[in-house]
């Protein structure tokens, strides 16, 4: 089969899974699930993790993992909110505070990039530890109290305002997605990123500065984490020392469910978004159905396993490896 066609079918398969699940919920929830307001609320609820995913995908594609997305979000939120409190409330100080927050994320990303590109350290463990450090820093900034910024109106608009009836965070997600998509698919950097993730040695021998590529990937991840932290702070009109805890797990889950290989170099941003929406839609549907929260994890786990198994199975059968099975040796045509 033509490879491009197959690839398109792969992508379609993911959409098909989503559509199937949506269809089930639409039938179960007539007039509720498939409404404009519910779609809006799904988008809104996915926007935070979605933005983090846009960043973390970069880190996973180069063969790393970034568990500090939540720490970056928390540091950025705390840093920004404390500056907002000490600022004079003018537009200038608000912008400065936002930039400072984003700067925190980029700095943290730079650090991770520098260390992880230089040393052969399991990124999983490294970012687990640094995430703890980042939360320690957040605790220093917040002194373990809520930083209440409900009076910073300009800042809070980000989280609460709507344009054409759609909340601003959704637009930000859209922008992040589009920018990341363009970066990954239409820029030299994106090409180099996939190349480094796919084969670092070959990329090096092709004249790519692998360390730079890796550093930038983590910086983007840090930036997106920080951005979502700012939006979270703005939505909540506060910064807390526990802000965004646990998001790193949601983000990682969405990414792996979306078919991005943890070995790097393979997978798409659309796939990761599919993961995010799969989890988001299931949660939303279960809540709308009024199913008790205690069943949510169970149902989610089963659906994810089923979806992945279906995905794996159909990718084998579509690539014509049905008879042989996925792990049999493939007789190559080369001698």
């Amino acid at each position, binding site marked *: 089969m*033509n*490879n*491009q066609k197959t*690839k398109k079918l792969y992508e379609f398969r993911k959409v098909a899974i989503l559509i199937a699940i949506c269809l089930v919920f639409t039938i179960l929830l007539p007039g509720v699930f498939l409404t404009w307001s519910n779609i809006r609320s799904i988008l809104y609820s996915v926007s935070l993790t979605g933005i983090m995913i846009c960043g973390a995908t970069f880190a996973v594609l180069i063969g790393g993992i970034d568990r500090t997305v939540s720490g970056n979000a928390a540091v950025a939120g705390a840093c920004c909110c404390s500056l907002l409190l000490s600022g004079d409330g003018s537009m200038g100080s608000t912008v400065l505070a936002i930039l400072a927050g984003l700067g925190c994320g980029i700095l943290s990303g730079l650090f991770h990039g520098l260390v992880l590109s230089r040393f052969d350290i399991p990124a999983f463990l490294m970012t687990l530890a640094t995430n703890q450090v980042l939360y320690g820093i957040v605790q220093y900034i917040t002194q373990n109290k809520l930083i209440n910024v409900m009076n910073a109106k300009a800042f809070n608009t980000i989280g609460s305002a709507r344009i054409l009836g759609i909340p601003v965070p959704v637009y930000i997600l859209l922008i992040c997605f589009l920018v990341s998509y*363009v970066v990954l698919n*239409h*820029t*030299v*950097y*994106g*090409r*180099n990123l*996939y*190349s480094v*993730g*796919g*084969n670092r*040695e*070959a*990329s*090096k*021998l*092709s*004249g*790519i*500065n692998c360390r730079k590529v890796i550093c930038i990937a983590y910086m983007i991840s840090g930036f997106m984490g920080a951005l979502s932290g700012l939006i979270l702070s703005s939505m909540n009109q506060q910064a807390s020392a526990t802000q965004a805890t646990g998001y790193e797990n949601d983000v990682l889950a969405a990414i792996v469910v979306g078919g991005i290989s943890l070995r790097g*170099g*393979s997978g798409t941003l659309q796939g990761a978004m599919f993961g995010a929406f799969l989890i988001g839609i299931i949660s939303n549907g279960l809540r709308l159905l009024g199913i008790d929260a205690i069943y949510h994890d169970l149902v989610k786990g089963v659906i994810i396993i089923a979806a992945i198994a279906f995905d794996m199975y159909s990718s084998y059968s579509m690539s014509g490896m049905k008879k042989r099975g996925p792990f049999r*040796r493939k*007789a*190559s*045509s*080369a*001698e």
Partner: protein
Amino acid sequence: MAETLLEMKNIEKIFAHVHALDHVNFEICKGEVVSLLGENGAGKSTLIKILTGVYPKDGGEIFFEGKQVEIDNKHDAEKLGIAVIFQELSLIPTLSVTQNIMLGKEMSTLGMIHYSAEKKKIAELIQRYDFPLEADAIVETLSVAQRQMVEILKALSADAKLIIMDEPTASLSRKESEVLYKIINQLRDQGVSIIYISHRLEEVFNLADRIAILRDGKNVGLVDREEIVPGDVVKMMIGKRLSEATASRNLTLSDKEVVLEVKNLTHLGYYENVSFQVHAGEVLVLTGLVGSGRTEVLRSIFGADPYDSGQVIYRGEVLKKNRIKHTVSKGFGLIPEDRRTQGFAPLLSVTRNVAVTNYDALAHMGFVNRAKEDELGEAVVGMVDLRPANPNVAVGNLSGGNQQKVVLGKWLTRDLNVILIDEPTVGIDIGAKDEIYDFIEKMTMQGIAVLMVSSDIAEVLRVAHRIIVMKEGRVIREFHDGAVTQEQILLAQSGLKEQAKEEAQYE
């Protein structure tokens, strides 16, 4: 001679309409060493892979100990007592020698391994063959030679009746090789049959009881030990087709400008005092056995590895050490030794892989011009005649030859001044090989300086304008003009005694 152990009759194998094996017959008796000779792509590996169940055969019959057998997978082969010592080793790096040898057939009661008993057994085995090995050494700490010995032991401990050795001495030192010869002789005495594949003719001549020669997937000769005449064997291997073109070659010293000059390059422990010049439009081949430091020189020139002293000079300009981007910007390209680990990203498409080196031309302000990129992909497919002719195929799914074409395509599309090529045709079928040689020739026509590393003599003769022979990290010989023959290079590479005589003749 003893009774026949294995007989392969009229074996056929067709790859993509090409007869890789065309009614090939092969026979080996018990306690016999038969050497399978042939150029790369003559069908040796295919035959072996059919024998071991890696490939299904498309025709013919196999008899083992008189009975007709079907070998569908490696397990079948093993049951029969056929063991292969592959070039690419199949050991478990983190386990010990004993554990590796006993893997899958441990001595145990209720799952508990009698490790000391196993160790004793393996130690005895090691002692019997006098291997420089320890029974409980961890495999990843061993040298390549030692790992190979482990592989041999593994075959022996499985009571293999037939051991196939594919280029076993390729990465062994002379002393290590001699140990191996001893082992082979010992095995023969014990009634084990050995199919021995090697490019080192002198060892074949010394070891083999018989030599079976393949060319272009056909039997071309079977020579008994007593009848071996080295020149005839080489002629049979090379055949008529190539004899005129490449059996010997007239080398000429180019008078064009010097593009690349390497001066006293030294990387302690890898190579020492290497100096040479490459002219525009010239192919300089660095040859020598594996481990002679050729690849390391190439990588250092490209900036992929550091060096301790010396200079790399491009058109009078001293290049910075260890800076690939710098050398690439000067118009250098590298086709690396192991394309699988260094050449391409297997999951990415042809276009993406090829474009990696070309974004300076394909992108504007950091944005990729996709139309141009696709064009490039299409262009490369046409340029290197990729099969299937689809630029969107993931490179990992291509055949070895086509993968190499992709790696070549990475650089062909650039304005190159110097290309460094490392063993471009290993594991590639004949057709694709020829195409790759054509590209090299085309490049020289464009005035590109080519520095190539190769251990395939036919290949060296086919493309070289000048030949440098390296051994143990030093340049030991240069052929720069006049006619040179395969024999000469072979002998020079191996450092045989005739060397002195030859040198006198050609220098």
